[in-house]
């Protein structure tokens, strides 16, 4: 089948490939071979299912792709629900799973909405802020932790901890270990006040304000 005929062009076909690829990455931990699945131990499949979507949904883009975060969320939710069921079957507490599910959905929604706002204007603000939040802070946290040599306790480890808490991607990654990351905030709903959740909200606000100003100037 010619993808142009279905999607209207190679760009849209590429977008579909990216979405289906993220879906595949998200679902893959649920269908690993026995030996590989055992090596994951009690890692939260729910958190693993969110990671590709958190990384992807804010990726700066224009046109229709910028507005399709509900589509990404629609693709993510069934896999996340199944992963949460697997985690529950493995004995993980419901509060922890609720926090991870809500934290991931919140991050995807606001990162996606921020990208949508950026597409309307204010993209100059959005791209570097998104890069900082998704790529920069986790990299900085990893570098600081590596610099500490795993010993912890120094000034670097405190800063690394702060960076990791601010980034939704790093928080999602930390959530792979049950009871940490999104689940650190305690009860399920309070995850919406977690640093990474607030950072996503602030990113959207900054982008939306910038977009509004640009439109007013234009």
């Amino acid at each position, binding site marked *: 089948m010619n993808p142009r005929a279905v999607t209207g062009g190679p760009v849209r076909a590429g977008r*579909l490939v990216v*979405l*289906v690829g993220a*879906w595949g990455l998200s*679902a893959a931990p*649920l*269908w690993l071979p026995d030996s590989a*699945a*055992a090596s*994951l131990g*009690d890692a939260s499949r729910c958190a693993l299912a969110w990671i590709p979507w958190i990384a992807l949904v804010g990726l700066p883009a224009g046109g229709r792709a910028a*507005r*399709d*975060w*509900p*589509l990404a*969320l*629609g*693709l*993510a*939710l*069934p*896999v*996340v*629900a*199944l992963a*949460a*069921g*697997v*985690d*529950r*079957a*493995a*004995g*993980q*507490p419901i509060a922890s799973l609720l926090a991870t599910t809500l934290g991931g959905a919140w991050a995807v929604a606001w990162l996606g909405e921020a990208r949508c706002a950026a597409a309307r204007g204010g993209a100059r603000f959005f791209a570097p802020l998104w890069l900082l939040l998704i790529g920069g802070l986790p990299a900085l946290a990893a570098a600081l932790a590596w610099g500490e040599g795993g010993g912890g306790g120094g000034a670097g480890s405190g800063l690394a901890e702060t960076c990791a808490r601010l980034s939704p991607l790093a928080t999602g990654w930390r959530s792979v270990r049950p009871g940490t990351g999104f689940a650190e905030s305690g009860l399920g709903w309070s995850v919406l006040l977690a640093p990474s959740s607030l950072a996503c909200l602030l990113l959207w606000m900054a982008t939306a304000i910038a977009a509004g100003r640009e439109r007013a100037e234009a």
Partner: protein
Amino acid sequence: MIASVWMLLLALGPQQPVGTVELRLVGPLDGAAVEAGSAPTELRLELARGEIRQFAAPVLLPDAPLPLPVAARLSGAPAEAQVVPGSGRHPGLWSELSPTLVGRGLPPLVEGTEPARPGALHGAWILAALVVVMAMRRRPWVAGGLGFVAAVALLSRPPERVPGPTVEVLEGEGAAGPWLRVRGARGRLELEDAAAGWLRLLPGSAPAQLALEEGGSGGRWAVEAPGARIYYYEALPASRAGSGELARSWIRAEDGAWSARGPWAAGSPLPAAIEGGEPPPAWLIAGLPPGEEVLLGLLAGPGERWLRSVGGAGGESPLRR
């Protein structure tokens, strides 16, 4: 050594009696709970209108001795549910059990290594959701809504729980003496039936509950205590101690000398001692009374089932008949 002393100390910790009551339920029913003591027993059952089910349900009792029969009441909104009068059973007093039988080391329990897996139906469902959501890609909000509906449907049929490996120890005092069956697992222990017994959780403060789930004939009972080590003690008549082949066996003579005997088929004479044979696990010899013959063994067959009999080791164990 330290591990065996630790397991012995654990064996001396507190335990909680589990009694039983006979329940009669008439549908429609969508879940209920039996309250008799320290924690409710959850009945995760769905009964159609007019469907009747009667069964014995285990109930977690307070530590203090209770008058018989066990009092219980049902909560929830069943169409008709009652505890059959006079059906309560108490396991008796822990202190009445032989101290040499209950003071032995407990088996260490490992975390389950078998991860829970989604079934083929789950796979088909999320693939269908992928196709439907992608088909609606030009309407992202509709696609998102459909994904949400698919997620809710998946949550209503989650993957089956995978119980951790269960370790069983048959504790006895010779052919004629009392026997106990001790079963242990981490996080969730499936009970073979609703027999009265004693529950021990490590740590003792771990919240636990008994639950009945659909599955098998008449449902499946389980003790659930996420993250905790669960041990369930059940008095066993010597006639029910079973018979079978030992995959590995050890004998302790009255003078305290251990000897490995290897496999021991039922009905066959005591095998000769194996020179330089592997010693028994430390937890299995912890807490055994001195000066008596002891037979230890790993039962052949699926699962991890151990035998520990004090007295009458030389062919007098019920397993050796």
